[in-house]
């Protein structure tokens, strides 16, 4: 589904019906143990490998396969695959394979950058809220509750249909509509960790509260944040594809998987399969790879849920 993960663990210490699990987060050591757990996981390899292949395809591919994705050639419109054009041509006679390669670049870049931005915004918001506590925390979380409860797609559509589409606009609106989960997550982590013994000990030893918090909290928080952000990358890529499909993506002639899917809709009756399936399959492939990496990260960095019988 084209949405951030349904299961968000912050804010729900337990999910009713599922057996409890203990917290068990590592102390302030750092995350090397988790990374090792990550790399031991077969799924991680599958995901990372997939992502690597796709990145190769989109960035190195155009250097190898040198067909021009921009120049129209009206003599070969909508041709089925041939030796010269292994994935056929589109309605302007452009090579589909070349456009697929190029089309991934923007999707990946916008997806990653917007996910990073939402991670930064959400982390900052969650830290502030969790550390502040009290009424401020309540108010901030109330706002987040409200924002989460709206189908963000409607706001996205509204904004995107009103303003001129551009890569920058897409990054901004994607980041602005997806930081809520990270904020909730971070805030809940902060609340959990505030009561930890080592924090108490550090305080007792005289360290200033805030420095203690930041130095001890951030590494632990980072783990779960990275997991959420990985899934967010997947969500962003799906959303970009969806927006492009609706015609709200980037203007021509830049190719873009979602927009290629959208144009192919006109040809479903003529079964120009080389226009309909490849962009979709590539989106699925990217999503799959990102989700696999996300799952593996979750298993490594958020073992609380793994022990509760979560995704493995």
């Amino acid at each position: 589904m084209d949405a951030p993960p349904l299961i968000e663990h912050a804010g729900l210490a337990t999910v009713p019906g599922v057996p409890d699990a203990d917290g068990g987060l590592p102390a302030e050591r750092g995350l090397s143990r988790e990374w090792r757990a990550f790399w031991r996981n077969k799924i991680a390899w599958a995901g990372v490998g997939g992502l690597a292949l796709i990145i190769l395809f989109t960035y190195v591919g155009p250097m190898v396969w040198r067909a021009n994705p921009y120049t129209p050639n009206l003599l070969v419109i909508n041709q089925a695959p041939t030796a010269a054009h292994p994935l056929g041509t589109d309605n302007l006679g452009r090579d589909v394979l070349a456009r697929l390669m190029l089309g991934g670049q923007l999707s990946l870049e916008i997806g990653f950058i917007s996910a990073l931005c939402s991670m930064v915004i959400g982390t900052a918001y969650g830290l502030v809220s969790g550390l502040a506590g009290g009424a401020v925390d309540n108010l901030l979380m109330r706002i987040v509750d409200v924002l989460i409860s709206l189908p963000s797609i409607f706001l996205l559509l509204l904004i995107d249909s009103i303003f001129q589409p551009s890569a920058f606009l897409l990054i901004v609106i994607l980041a602005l509509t997806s930081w809520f989960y990270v904020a909730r997550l971070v805030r809940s982590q902060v609340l959990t960790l505030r009561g930890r013994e080592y924090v108490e000990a550090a305080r007792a030893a005289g360290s200033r509260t805030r420095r203690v918090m930041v130095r001890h909290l951030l590494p632990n928080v980072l783990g779960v944040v990275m997991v959420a952000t990985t899934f967010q990358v997947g969500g962003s890529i799906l959303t970009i594809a969806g927006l492009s499909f609706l015609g709200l993506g980037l203007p021509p002639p830049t190719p873009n998987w979602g927009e290629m899917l959208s144009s192919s809709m006109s040809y479903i009756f003529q079964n120009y399969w080389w226009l309909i399936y490849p962009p979709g399959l590539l989106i699925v492939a990217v999503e799959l790879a990102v989700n696999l990496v996300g799952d593996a990260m979750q298993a490594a960095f958020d073992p609380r849920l793994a022990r509760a019988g979560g995704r493995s």
Partner: protein
Amino acid sequence: MSGYITRRLLQAIPTLVGIAILSFLIVHAVPGGPAAAMLGPRSTPARIAAANREFGLDKPLPVQFGLWFWQLLHLNLGTSYFFNQSVASLIAVNLPRTLAIVGIGVTFAHVIAIAMGSAQSYRKDSIFDQVVMVLAYFFYSMPTFWLGIILIVIFSIGLGWFPTGGISNATETSAGFGVWASHIILPVTTIVIGTVAGWGRYMRAAMNEILIQDYIRTARAKGLGEFVVVFKHALRNSLLPLITLFGLSLPSLFGGALYVEVVFNYPGLGLLFWDGAVQRDYPVVLGGVIVIGAVTILGNLIADVLYAVVDPRIQY
């Protein structure tokens, strides 16, 4: 409990007001109203100016907002520019259609997810289990709209079993349940597959394996069909996680439904909103956002209330 409900409802009001203001500002942020979209090739600046005058779009922005908000307080969502009829009547017709496919989809998705989860736990780590997991991953990674397109290509154009979209065929020559069903099967299937894939991953984990082993032992002792027993027990005990999931996934369900409606040209609230956004039919867009917000908030509230009803441990 009633205090809790009242509190939540009261909290909903400033939320909706905030949404209303935000949407109004977004919608009016950029010039270029609905007239050119409505008139198409018949657009002339004179007609556009006359249209703007008729719609009150030539007044200063704060005045427009005041007028619209005043109407809103009287529960009047205004009149659609494009359809020249009240927004409330448009929503009243379209919203049930969205609720229909979402409601039916969720129900089927739940039952199927339980069955799948039970079967997977029952045959844990078998080939079946792995295959289902892989499939779930695959469909989870698929964009909703693409799934819809594939279904259209295979079942509608390829096999000709179902229409490609809309809600009715020839308008008056045939009607009734059969026609309606044939039109919603593919959209509902799209929603079901996407939802099951998302929930299934969680369901598999949530199936308490120990409890299931208990059920199996009991069933064996009593000589009952094992899988059926497992399934029945799982279904019964899945209600609470379901309600959680449903509440959490309401926003994304509506979002997914919007893509489904666009792909299948299914005239629900999502498509109404989308058309309105493109055509700058401000009253429809603003009304749609508020209604969706209200429905989502209400849905979440119902989910939370059902928690308490179903699990006596939960107290508000």
